[in-house]
């Protein structure tokens, strides 16, 4: 299969403008006759569904939540990037593009990333018009802060709840279209299969989660905006219901899964505290604007802290290793996530971890509290403040900036982060890999589009902070509404798609068979226990560091676990006539058991280190990732044909015409 990225010709800076001006249009009278299914109602899905509705298409939007407002986009904390250059600090569309390509370790498509940077500015305008209460300065204009991997301040934020506010903006736009009748909203419906007719995506099989009934929904095109697959690791910062099922079922129908091994481990999460743990909580990257990351220099100090005999406060300044500042002086604590995570792992591997499990480093705000306190005292005319005054004033400033994050930390750990340094450790957070899409965000299946985290498009091997919200909204508001026209302009003569055609009947029957199979096993082990075991395999062997031996073993273990699952899982209740969350979970875990194997296969075949994919065999003497551009500057798009055959690799070579491939340095 030849993969055509369909990048438009011409100079990088003109591609999108030219494309937008020449893409075929669908006239308003024809839009009314065309149906679009949008699966997912997070930033990408809600934005796309609302915008399609505004344009005049008939939209059906599906979510497995009880309301579109619950999608996991809501939990994004830190912010959203945009090349507004409001700070006058040298930002530009090109710089955002360059930072994103470099941050992704040169494994993303130039044209897509440049477009993302271009439309980033429109997103902020749109969100403000919708009533998103971004942080502002006293002059009434928008405030910014910095995120990792960049040297400008281009991140817009709404306290530590930027995702919530942006999602509410998109949800309100979606709600308006629902009230106008252009969008039909299906809550508590989960997509369990993709329906293809004559080689095109024409609908979905959805399960009504309240009744268990299977429903056939037909449309001219299907858009997936179903998020990432981080929950394959069981423990992650993802919400409990995040899953790969919609995307994976499309893969089962022929869609290609691209770069599945590119997963993001976020450096600043609250460490694991026990075996019962169900999820991990992120502490926003924005904290690294002011938090300094360190471990004790001496192993005996670290051991004393682990044993509860000392605290971080007892370690003298000279006995602390601010390892990010030491190793990466140019970016310091604001190195990209993959770099910061690995550095924390190295410190803990050396026996310097500070939690009882040995897996935590400190993030310390005392320097910031001191700095802000002095500055605040000075603005109040007090040029010789005492230490207590400085501390008090400084804590107030820090509280204003990060209060809700500090409160969350205290709720979870029971420790006061104003007094004691936070303990943090990396955790799975985001997946850069996803469904392969071309410039139109169309998968290799005609009429099937993928937006937001569920596609692989923009972040290469590592995503920069505050870029997920940007991509989700860019895809939903400003890219898909144009690019889908490229497909739909050829569909204006296609009559309404019939949901009673043999293809739909068959897909529904296939889905019922899968459900009945799971219900009939009646084994002894819970779904949860299988998920936990899968997660452990993935985290240990396909997590922050990977090697051929571990990955080979992992593949074997996943296959065995999958066999065991289909022999011994117990799903209580019944498949119909009741709300059965255990069955929902079982269907999702079944798909994770296949996706996990594909991730391992991909990690095994990519014999280089780049971004979040760190193969221990391929590193520099200083322990930095060692890329192999000569052999691996491609997108790995995998075709999956079931358990009994190896997945087939299709390569899309990445062409870099505008940036020079360099070794990524943050020193």
């Amino acid at each position, binding site marked *: 299969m030849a993969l055509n990225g369909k990048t438009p010709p011409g100079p990088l800076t003109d591609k999108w403008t030219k494309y937008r001006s020449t893409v075929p249009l669908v006239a308003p009278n024809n839009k009314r006759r065309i149906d679009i299914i949008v699966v997912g109602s997070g930033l990408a899905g809600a*934005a796309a569904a609302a915008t399609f509705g*505004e344009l005049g298409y008939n939209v059906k939007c599906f979510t497995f*939540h009880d*309301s579109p*407002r*619950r*999608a*996991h986009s*809501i*939990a994004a904390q830190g912010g959203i990037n945009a090349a*507004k250059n*409001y700070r006058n600090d040298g930002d530009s569309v090109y710089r955002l593009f360059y930072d994103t390509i470099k941050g992704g370790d040169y494994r993303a498509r130039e044209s897509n990333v440049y477009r993302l940077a271009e439309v980033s500015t*429109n997103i902020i*305008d*749109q*969100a*403000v*018009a*919708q*009533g998103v*209460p*971004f942080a*502002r*300065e006293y*002059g*009434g*204009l*928008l405030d910014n802060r910095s995120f990792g991997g960049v040297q400008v301040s281009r991140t817009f934020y709404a*306290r530590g709840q930027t*995702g*919530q*506010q942006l999602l509410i903006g998109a*949800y*309100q*736009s979606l*709600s*308006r279209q629902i*009230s106008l009748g252009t969008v039909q909203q299906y*809550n508590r419906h989960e997509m369990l299969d993709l329906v293809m007719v004559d080689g095109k995506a024409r609908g979905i099989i959805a399960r009504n989660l309240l009744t268990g009934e299977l429903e056939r929904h037909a449309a001219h095109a299907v858009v997936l905006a179903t998020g990432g697959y981080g929950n394959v690791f069981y423990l992650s910062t993802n*919400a*409990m*219901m995040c899953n790969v099922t919609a995307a994976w079922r499309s893969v089962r129908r022929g869609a290609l899964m691209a770069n599945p091994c590119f997963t993001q481990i976020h450096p600043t999460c609250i460490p694991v*505290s*026990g075996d*019962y743990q*169900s*999820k991990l*909580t992120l502490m926003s990257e924005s904290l690294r604007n002011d938090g300094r990351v360190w471990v004790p220099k001496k192993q005996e100090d670290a051991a004393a802290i682990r044993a509860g005999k000392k605290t971080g406060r007892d370690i003298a300044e000279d006995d602390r290793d601010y390892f990010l500042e030491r190793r990466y002086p140019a970016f310091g604590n604001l190195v990209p996530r993959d770099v910061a995570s690995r550095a924390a792992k190295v410190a803990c591997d050396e026996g310097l971890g500070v939690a009882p499990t040995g897996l935590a480093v400190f993030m310390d705000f005392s320097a910031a509290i001191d700095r802000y306190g002095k500055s605040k005292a000075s603005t109040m005319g007090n040029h010789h403040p005492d230490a207590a005054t400085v501390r008090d004033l400084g804590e107030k400033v820090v509280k204003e900036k990060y209060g809700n994050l500090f409160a*969350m930390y205290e*709720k*979870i750990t*029971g420790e006061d982060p104003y007094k004691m340094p936070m303990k943090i450790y990396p955790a799975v957070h985001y997946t850069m890999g996803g469904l392969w899409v071309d410039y139109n965000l169309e998968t290799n299946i005609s009429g099937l589009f993928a937006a937001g985290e569920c596609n692989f498009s923009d972040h290469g091997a590592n995503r920069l902070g505050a870029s997920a919200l940007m991509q989700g909204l860019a895809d939903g508001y400003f890219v898909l*509404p144009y690019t889908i026209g490229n497909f739909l302009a050829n569909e204006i003569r296609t009559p309404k798609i019939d949901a009673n055609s043999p293809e739909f009947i068959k897909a529904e029957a296939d889905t019922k068979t899968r459900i009945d199979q799971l219900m009939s096993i009646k084994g002894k082990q*819970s779904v*949860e226990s299988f998920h936990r075991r899968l997660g452990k395999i993935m985290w240990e062997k396909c997590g922050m560091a990977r090697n051929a031996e571990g990955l080979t073993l992992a593949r074997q273990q996943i296959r065995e676990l999958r066999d065991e699952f289909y022999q011994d899982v*117990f799903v*209580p209740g019944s498949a119909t006539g*009741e*709300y059965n*969350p255990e069955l929902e979970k079982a269907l999702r875990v079944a798909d994770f058991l296949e996706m996990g194997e594909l991730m391992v296969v991909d990690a095994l075949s990519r014999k280089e280190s780049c971004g979040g994919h760190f193969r221990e065999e391929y590193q520099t003497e200083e322990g930095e990732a060692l890329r192999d551009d000569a052999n691996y500057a491609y997108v790995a798009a995998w075709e999956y044909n079931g358990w009994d055959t190896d997945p087939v690799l299709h390569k899309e070579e990445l062409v870099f015409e505008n940036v020079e491939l360099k070794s990524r340095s943050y020193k």
Partner: protein
Amino acid sequence: MENMRLKLKVWRQPKPNSKGQFVEYQLDNVSEHMSFLEMLDVLNENLVSKREDPVAFEHDCREGICGTCSMVINGHPHGPQSGTTTCQLHMRHFNDGDTITVEPFRATAFPVVKDLVVERAAFDRIIQAGGYISVNTGQARDANSLPVSKEASSASFDAAACIGCGACVAACPNASAMLFVSAKVSHLALLPQGKVEAQRRALNMVKQMDLEGFGNCSNVTACEAECPKEISVNNIARLNREYISASFSYEEKEDKGGGAG
């Protein structure tokens, strides 16, 4: 601290129309570091291992922001800890030997689906009635072309922090949704972008709220006390002002229509 032993009295109701009842469960080995939902996970694992039906409860982000988790714990929506959702309530706030009562949010407008799960779609319909600014994608002007004072923006945010969980309704003896509705009305009315349709919005949202079967506000203010995001009842006062002034002055006029061409 040693692990705790707890007695749980949990509301079990298999279907929307079936009769529910409290069922008692004994749970040992509860760690103080567990969240309340992780404690229920352990209970459910126990039930599944005995091939019993696990307790259905809703949850998703488990970091206090999605608004999915609900339930009334010892008489308090989201439990006894102020400003905290159930998912962020940790077991260190309970004591060894405690008996904990867990039941669903109770309100006519929030019918029980199963056990602790209720249907809150009424909130969506209230937002659909007007909880938005009527602006299409692509119509926006530059974000900094209209300054908004830090104070107004911050006050708007305070209201916009609502997570739509419905605790205010569950806390209210009248099952009123005034705190929820007023938070949305305030969020938008406090911003210049949202002022334009403020009157229409207040009228339509209140009308829908009444249609959904929520009760009236009688200034009990239990909603504010139980709100996990500490949304202020001052918003209700603002809604009342908006609503009353709109009732007197706002009139939806029919467009004359027509036009040449």
